[in-house]
């Protein structure tokens, strides 16, 4: 750390640091034309930049921010492309030099290397991978550090995932302090759903040196969010508002707060305890001068209020934070293959839909977090944990608990996790702590700490508390605070020693009272080897909560456990007006769980279908009805019933296919509509899953009819149509290789060859992407001439399909099935 850096951090901690204000509008006022990237002026008009930086320093700013907001490899390439273009290195180097020149000329000030959003979309919304995003920021950071910036300022961020990429890039490419500020809107949320709490949790987890707010709002509107940040943040907080609200005046954007009004509104934020102050859009050197005066006159104003919550234990998803405190938290335990045959199979088949549905089901049942464990012999756990975490975080807003004994699997998953995760687990063995704590130090996280070490699990509470203390001490060496540790006292079954429960409960209580640390338990082991385990589990869960248990890893689908949970909250005053309890009873959460396993009612009372009759004697039976009506649960139980009496293949041929055909014909005639077609398809899919499982047990796997590659073409991000076709084709027993959306022609060709697929289906929704479809067909003709191509999508017609050289045009979802049936039956001629 150089001298300037430590002086800067010292000043931020102990006094106030005044940042500069807006830059864009000042550049425009000095003649920057519309459409010209402002960063090019670092090189073409250095004198203008130096002048603006100087004006800010002379107005009293301690920090000048480099003109690099939009400087990234997506806008400025590594190599010169044209005579008058600039490389990223040239832009960043010149920007830092301009700021340093101003500092030299005025004799004071720090230089902040500015990083803004990349303007690109990260997965899963877009196609920029997390690692590519980190690399993009890394280049800017390296060039800026080489050029002599004093610290990195990441600002105006609204996507926490992009923010995480930027902070990691800054931390991994030099030793400069990192400050990050985000842009909230008037509702107190980031555009992607983040909250002040989740911002603090993420940034402090990543060890940012300071954090805060900029842009989006004026000082008054920002005060409430600033207060929330100050409540939770342990590091200094920076606030850089706009000069009020923008409006359009003769085609120009102007802001409504003058310098004096702006500074006056900042008084409240200073009084709350913000350490770094400055301005964003619409603010000028005059605003900063007025702010400097206010700052001087408010020296010695009261520090932060006494309602601080810096000890809050927070885990986050891409959106909100879950707080682990006195109110008990449920962590859903179901994504764990131990003892679950279907999940093991799903992991081997990479059946993400199955796994995601387990997660969403637990969310519906009331879990606050989801444990994710994919450790299973024969599975590459490192790759699979990352994959499942990516998939889960794209469909659930619950934070995840990354559960693995493999530090490499944890490291990879923690890196790509969108938020501050829970980690399961570390224990008192030196080897475990040496592996896990450095990861938590780097990526942030709340860690489950098991009370065992090299000597095993102590039999007494004293022994377990001693291990907990050891873990807490070791964590402190890495700067990991108690708030980020959850002690797991461990449950040994009472069937081997009736004192086991008491030891666990005492450890829980003493961890809270004596060590001042929060606790977690996997509850159900307590009853191992006993009959009616749920009875013991639920009672033990209640006792544990009464002894101070903060979080439990349980099955939220267990009626007994959920009853214990809701009843405890109701009795302990955590449930105002007992609303959650009553809702859970009325909404059937508890009651539904209680009847889990019972056959759903109504299977035999489904009204007669209006679908077309079939020659099969079973057409019209319960499974036929359930599928043609799109009733998933009924289809599953009807399939199970049918399997008791009949052959699997007969059921498929006599009940299921006729039902699918009848619905498909109805769709073509216009008596059945797309949503019903899809609901039937899903009911059939669920029934198929039951039948396949049955076949697998008999080692009589039904072979698929063949491989079909599907893709939404390059440039198009609408893939709902393609996904519909996929579901239907799978029901007709084709193996679909789904390449997703925005797929380059080369990738389609490569997949068609690799999978030896006789048929490729291409989808496009926009007229603008049809040329890309044509290009894909041309490439297929060149490199895989035997492959047939069907196309579909909103803008296509038969004539259009012919014009671009497709073999078949599928006018709707069933059209794809018709084409496939013809191709695979050998009737290839159109």
């Amino acid at each position, binding site marked *: 750390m150089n001298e300037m850096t430590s002086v800067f951090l010292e000043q931020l901690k102990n006094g106030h640091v005044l940042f500069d204000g807006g830059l864009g509008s000042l550049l425009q006022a000095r003649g920057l034309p*519309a*459409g010209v990237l402002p960063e090019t002026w670092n090189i073409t008009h250095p004198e203008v930049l130096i002048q603006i930086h100087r004006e800010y320093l002379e107005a009293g700013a301690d920090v000048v921010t480099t003109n690099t907001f939009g400087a990234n490899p997506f806008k400025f390439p590594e190599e010169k492309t044209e005579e008058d273009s600039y490389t990223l290195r040239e832009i960043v180097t010149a920007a830092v030099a301009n700021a340093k020149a101003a500092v030299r000329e005025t004799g004071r000030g720090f230089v902040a290397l500015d990083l803004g*959003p990349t*303007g*690109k*979309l990260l997965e*899963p*919304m*877009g*196609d920029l991978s997390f690692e590519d995003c980190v690399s993009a920021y890394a280049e800017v950071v390296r060039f800026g550090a080489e050029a002599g910036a004093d610290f990195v300022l990441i600002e*105006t961020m*609204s*996507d926490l995932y992009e923010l995480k990429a930027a902070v990691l890039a800054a931390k991994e490419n030099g030793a400069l302090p990192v400050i990050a500020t985000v*842009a909230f*809107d008037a*509702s107190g*949320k980031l*555009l*992607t*759903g983040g909250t002040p709490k989740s911002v603090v949790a993420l940034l402090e987890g990543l060890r940012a040196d300071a954090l805060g707010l900029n*842009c*989006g709002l004026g000082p008054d509107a920002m005060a409430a969010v600033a207060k929330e940040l100050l409540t939770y943040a342990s590091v200094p907080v920076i606030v850089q508002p706009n000069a009020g609200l923008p409006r*359009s005046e*003769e*085609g120009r*954007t102007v802001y409504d707060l003058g310098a004096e009004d702006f500074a006056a509104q900042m008084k409240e934020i200073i009084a709350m305890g913000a350490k770094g102050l400055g301005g964003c859009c619409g603010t000028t050197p005059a605003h900063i001068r007025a702010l400097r005066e206010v700052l001087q006159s408010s020296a010695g104003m009261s520090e932060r209020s006494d309602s601080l919550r810096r000890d809050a234990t927070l885990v986050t998803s891409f959106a909100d934070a879950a707080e682990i405190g006195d109110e008990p938290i449920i962590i859903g335990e179901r994504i764990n293959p131990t003892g679950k045959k279907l999940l093991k199979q799903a992991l081997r088949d990479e059946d*993400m*839909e199955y796994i*995601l*549905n387990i997660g*969403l089901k637990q969310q519906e049942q009331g879990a606050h977090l989801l444990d994710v464990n994919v450790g299973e012999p024969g599975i590459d756990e490192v790759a699979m944990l990352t994959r499942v975490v990516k*998939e889960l975080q*794209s*469909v*659930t807003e619950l934070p995840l608990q990354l559960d693995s004994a493999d530090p490499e699997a944890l490291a990879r998953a923690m890196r790509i996790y969108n938020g501050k995760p829970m980690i399961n687990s570390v224990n008192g063995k030196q080897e475990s702590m040496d592996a896990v704590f450095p990861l938590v130090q780097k990526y942030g996280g709340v860690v489950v700490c098991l009370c065992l070490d090299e000597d095993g699990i102590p039999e007494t509470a004293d022994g377990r508390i001693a291990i907990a203390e050891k873990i807490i001490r070791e964590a402190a060496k890495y700067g990991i605070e108690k708030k980020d540790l959850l002690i797991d006292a461990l449950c040994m079954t009472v069937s081997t020693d009736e004192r086991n429960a008491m030891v666990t409960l005492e450890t829980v209580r003493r961890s809270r009272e004596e060590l001042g640390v929060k606790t977690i338990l996997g509850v159900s082991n307590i009853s191992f080897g006993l009959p009616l385990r749920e009875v013991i589990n639920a009672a033990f869960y209640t006792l544990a909560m009464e002894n101070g248990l903060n979080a439990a890893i349980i099955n939220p689908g267990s009626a007994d456990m959920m009853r214990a949970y809701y009843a405890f909250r109701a009795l302990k005053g955590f449930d105002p007006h007992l609303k959650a309890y009553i809702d859970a009873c009325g909404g059937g959460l508890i009651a539904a769980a209680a009847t889990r396993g019972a056959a759903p009612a109504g299977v035999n009372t489904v009204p007669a279908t209006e679908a077309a009759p079939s020659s099969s004697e079973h057409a019209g039976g319960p499974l036929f009805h359930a599928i043609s*009506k*799109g009733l998933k649960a009924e289809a599953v139980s009807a399939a199970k019933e049918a399997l008791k009496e009949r052959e699997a293949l007969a059921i498929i041929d006599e009940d299921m296919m006729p039902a699918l055909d009848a619905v498909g014909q109805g769709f073509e005639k*216009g008596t059945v*509509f*797309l*949503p*019903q077609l*899809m*609901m039937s*398809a*899903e009911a059939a899919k669920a029934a198929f899953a039951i039948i396949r499982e049955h076949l697998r047990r008999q080692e009589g796997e039904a072979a698929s009819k063949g491989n079909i590659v599907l893709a939404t073409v390059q*440039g*198009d*991000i*609408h*893939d*709902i149509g393609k*996904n*519909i076709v996929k*579901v239907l084709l799978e029901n007709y027993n084709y193996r679909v290789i789904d390449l997703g959306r*925005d797929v380059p022609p080369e990738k389609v060709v490569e997949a068609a060859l690799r999978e030896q697929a006789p048929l490729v289906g291409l989808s496009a929704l*926009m007229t*603008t*992407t049809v040329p890309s479809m044509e290009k894909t067909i041309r490439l297929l003709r060149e490199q895989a001439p035997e492959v047939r191509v069907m196309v579909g999508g909103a803008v296509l017609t038969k004539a259009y399909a012919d014009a671009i050289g497709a073999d078949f045009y599928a006018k*709707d979802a069933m059209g794809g099935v018709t084409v496939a049936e013809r191709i695979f039956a050998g009737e290839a001629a159109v």
Partner: protein
Amino acid sequence: MNTEKVNRKEIAHYLGIHGASPDAQTEEVIEDCLRELSAKVNPKHVFRTYPLALVPPASEEEVPLLHFADIGVQSRDLSRNLAGCDEVLLFGATLGDGADFLIRRYEKTRMSRALVMQASAAAMIEAYCNEINDAWEAEYAAKGFSLKPRFSCGYGDFALEHQKDFLRVLELEKRLGIRLTDGCLMVPTKSVTAVIGIYQERDE
């Protein structure tokens, strides 16, 4: 967002149900999707007004050139739409990431619901745009002005490329979280940009 104003017929239309009413089961799913959406979306919009200049083409064959903000647009269809206007209102609106999140969730886990969610969200952003449009119409009517129907890039010969101009001029990335794919499609996908012509009714 209040879902009452979302046009159910339009949702049915997006689902391929033309002329008929959806069955009760589908109707129920539609209502349920609207409920789920309304809890998750965060509709927002920004707008600014600019003077409009039309460069008349030298000949019939030449495509007319329009200027507003710092944007130059060559388009016959847009110039027809803006005929008689001296001023335009540019706006951008979005339901936010929430709608895409729900569509993605169900695409991966329950396609039939994804389908209805997608159609419901499309009708919802339309309803939101209509709502703000109506308010502007009333506001301008009070001052003696009328508004042309909104016109988006991608319509007719108004090139989709101009989406970049909307993003820059209205600061849509910073203010609404809208970004563009390489093919100039907006994400969040349930977003709209448009230009609305403002004109004064003249007594002839």
